[in-house]
């Protein structure tokens, strides 16, 4: 169904090919999980198979590619191929769900009388039958992605290509989409799934192919075996591995076996109450779009501590950050030091035409005397020095994320607010981002981070605030809140397996997870081609 022979792809201006001799064969009924590092050619391979490269995106392509019996490249998209990408906003093109799902059938000239029943069946198959009369613009991320999947599967493609379909979703929605994706693995079809959240998603495809940094296939075999045998290398590529594979990457049999000095930086309650408050919010109430977004929220942001704000979608997390930053009309009081803010999508915050000017923006506006030295130091600290003259809009997602953190950190605010800073990022950028926020707190600033990622919370934060329907339903130190199953369940939060296992050890969660990370990084250094997940190696 899919066959590539010596596939080489080089983008214009690139120093070396992103794919350099890829051989891949998939028969009908074969379903592959495609893994690789960020920028390592996974998406490029899918785009070649979908025909987008080189038909739409220019690149030099050589070697043989055959998909569903057709030799590529061709002038038209192959009607037997379905292709789904990360962002529902990029693939829902019509105003209503019904029209959206019907679109592919109309384009294949399916008789109108057959279209209605097939649309309904496709939506049922992805557990989205109830969405049929909704407007596409009103769907949540998870709903949108399920509708996008229905719109792809409705034409019954022989080849299904899925490029990180869950990466922009919160954990609960990601599970729903992953389950829907699994229903698309039929015996008549071949599919390729690119995914990096392997820790939380059940139902992985049976076969796994790993692309190496050299642009070739580095491993190919049954998923369980590949994840087991190449665990250290995969961890070094920035993937979130299932717990068993992560333990294997760390070279231990269980979390109990990890030895580490018990945490000196562990979140003790005495430290919590003694650290000075740098931002105090009292009775913060926000009305947005005619309804209450936030009800009388109190929050103390303390110097040197990271407060995580968690809760389901629409619970008011982002609104709380906007209120703390004074960016939305609110009643109540917010008193304290200066506030910097990092938004969910870094490109929304860009102001300058080069990375250097972007970082220098704040210090220049503040008329700092030492702008040049400050900017150089910050560029180095955030591993941006090689990119100083690049256009911020042309950076990769991970690079843009580091840039927006750097540009906020350089201003020296007393408080830094971050709204889902690891949104859509792989494990390696997530770790780098967490490290950067932790470092800012360790400098004595107060940090507030909104996130859906409870592993990030466990690794990074000291305190947690749980929001639901605009109200604080729980607050406390990380170990207290993570151990409160009732609160987590009510807020629709699911503890990732690694965090649950770390809690079960009875030792401080952050200590255990740090030890796991350190052991994984160490074995990555030892493994032949792995590199530890540090800031400097994030965007190879």
């Amino acid at each position, binding site marked *: 169904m899919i066959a590539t022979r010596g596939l080489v792809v080089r983008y214009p201006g690139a120093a070396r090919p992103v794919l350099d001799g890829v051989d891949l064969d998939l028969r009908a009924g074969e379903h592959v999980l495609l893994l690789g590092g960020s920028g390592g050619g996974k998406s490029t391979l899918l785009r070649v198979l*979908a*025909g987008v490269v080189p038909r*739409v995106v220019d690149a030099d392509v050589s070697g043989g590619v055959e998909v569903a019996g057709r030799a590529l490249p061709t002038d*038209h*998209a192959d*009607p037997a191929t379905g292709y789904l*990408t990360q962002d529902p*906003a*990029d*693939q*829902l*093109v*019509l*105003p*209503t769900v*019904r*029209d959206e799902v*019907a*679109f*592919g*059938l*109309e*384009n*294949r*000239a399916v*008789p*109108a009388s057959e*279209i*209605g029943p097939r*649309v309904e069946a496709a939506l049922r198959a992805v557990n989205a039958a109830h969405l049929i009369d909704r*407007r*596409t*613009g009103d769907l949540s991320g998870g709903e949108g992605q399920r509708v996008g999947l229905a*719109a*792809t599967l409705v*034409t019954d493609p022989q080849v299904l290509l899925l490029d990180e379909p869950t990466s922009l979703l919160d954990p609960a929605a990601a599970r729903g989409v992953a389950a829907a994706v699994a229903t698309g693995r039929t015996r008549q079809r071949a599919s390729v799934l690119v995914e990096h959240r392997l820790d939380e998603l059940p139902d992985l495809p049976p076969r796994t192919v790993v692309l190496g940094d050299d642009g070739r296939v580095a491993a190919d075999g049954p998923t369980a075996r590949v994840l087991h045998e190449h665990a250290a290398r995969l961890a070094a590529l920035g993937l979130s591995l299932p717990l068993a594979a992560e333990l294997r990457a760390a070279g231990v049999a269980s979390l109990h076996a990890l030895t580490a000095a018990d945490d000196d930086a562990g979140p003790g309650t005495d430290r919590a109450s003694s650290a000075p408050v740098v931002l105090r919010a009292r009775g913060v109430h926000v009305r947005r779009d005619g309804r209450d977004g936030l009800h009388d929220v109190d929050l103390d942001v303390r110097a040197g501590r990271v407060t995580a704000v968690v809760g389901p979608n629409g619970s008011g997390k982002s609104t709380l950050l*906007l209120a703390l*930053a*004074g*960016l*939305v009309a609110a009643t109540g009081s917010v008193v304290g030091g*200066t*506030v*910097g*803010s990092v*938004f969910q*999508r870094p*490109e*929304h*915050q*860009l*102001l300058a035409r080069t990375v250097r000017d972007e970082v220098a*923006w*704040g*210090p220049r*506006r*503040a008329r700092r005397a030492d702008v040049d030295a400050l900017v150089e130091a910050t560029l180095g600290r955030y591993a941006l020095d090689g990119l100083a003259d690049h256009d911020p*809009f042309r950076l990769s997602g991970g690079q843009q994320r580091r840039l927006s953190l750097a*540009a*906020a950190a350089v201003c020296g605010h007393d408080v830094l607010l971050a709204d889902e800073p690891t949104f859509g990022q792989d494990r390696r950028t997530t770790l780098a981002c967490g490290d950067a926020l932790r470092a800012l707190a360790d400098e004595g600033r107060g940090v507030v981070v909104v996130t859906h990622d409870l592993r990030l919370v466990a690794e990074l934060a000291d305190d947690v605030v749980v929001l639901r329907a605009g109200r604080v339903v729980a607050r406390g130190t990380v170990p207290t809140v993570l151990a409160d199953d009732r609160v987590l369940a009510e807020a629709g939060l699911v503890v990732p397996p690694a965090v649950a296992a770390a809690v079960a050890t009875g030792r401080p969660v952050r200590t255990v997870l740090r030890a796991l990370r350190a052991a994984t990084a160490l074995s990555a250094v030892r493994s032949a081609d792995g590199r530890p997940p540090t800031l400097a190696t994030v965007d190879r």
Partner: protein
Amino acid sequence: MSPPALGRALPHDSVLHRRNPTVKLAVSSVVSLVLLVPVDPWTPGLLLLLALPAATVAGRLGARTVLRAVALFAPFALSVLAVNAVTCPGQVVWRGVGLEVTTTGLSVGGALALRALLVGVLSVAFTLTTDAGRLMTSLHQHARLGPRATFAVLAGYRVLEQLPERWETVRRAQAVREPGRRPGAPLPRDAGALARAAFAVLVVSLRQGERLAVALEQRGLGAGPRTVARPVPLDRRDAALAGVVLGVVGLVVVASWWTGVLQTWADVG
């Protein structure tokens, strides 16, 4: 009732909601074209008096909505009246501050101002009773507009739909980068700040547009002949709507000619 949103019909049913979008668009266009002929205020005035209750009832829009539409177009109508009043040659009725107001100017200006209000009411009635998606399907079916054009418009509409929220987010995201900003201060409105926000919104929207275009093509748009899953009906009732509206317009024009109030550009020279 939810507030009107871009490209969405009001969420109730009415005679106008059920009519064919292409027919509605064509009829309103013909009416606005026909009204380029008379330059006396009586003809467009009478039509406006008929159109106001007709749109209110046939579209079940409510008097308040229709009057708001009139208010929306009133400043433009007044400016048309003012400009014509002082620029058309004719018998002077008032002189002052270096300007001369003429009877012809008042008549022509009044006619064009009333025409502007009428076109405004028709456009609002059309917009509030027509769904963008159904309009595009109908234009494809009945006006033979190619699928690439209609679906490109719909994809553009998706981008447009997200524009207000994106604009707000970008302005907030950029405002917070200003080190001297006071919490609670309004978002900056200087030309530089607006230009930077516009640039970011433009880049983000263009990229989304490119990806939407890929998605359209990837799902087979333009690959060959296509079917329409939910055709927009076109039947006798649409012909009746066109017949009634165009008939009334014709009657009004004939009546104003018959009574001698009709004036055309030829009359005012």
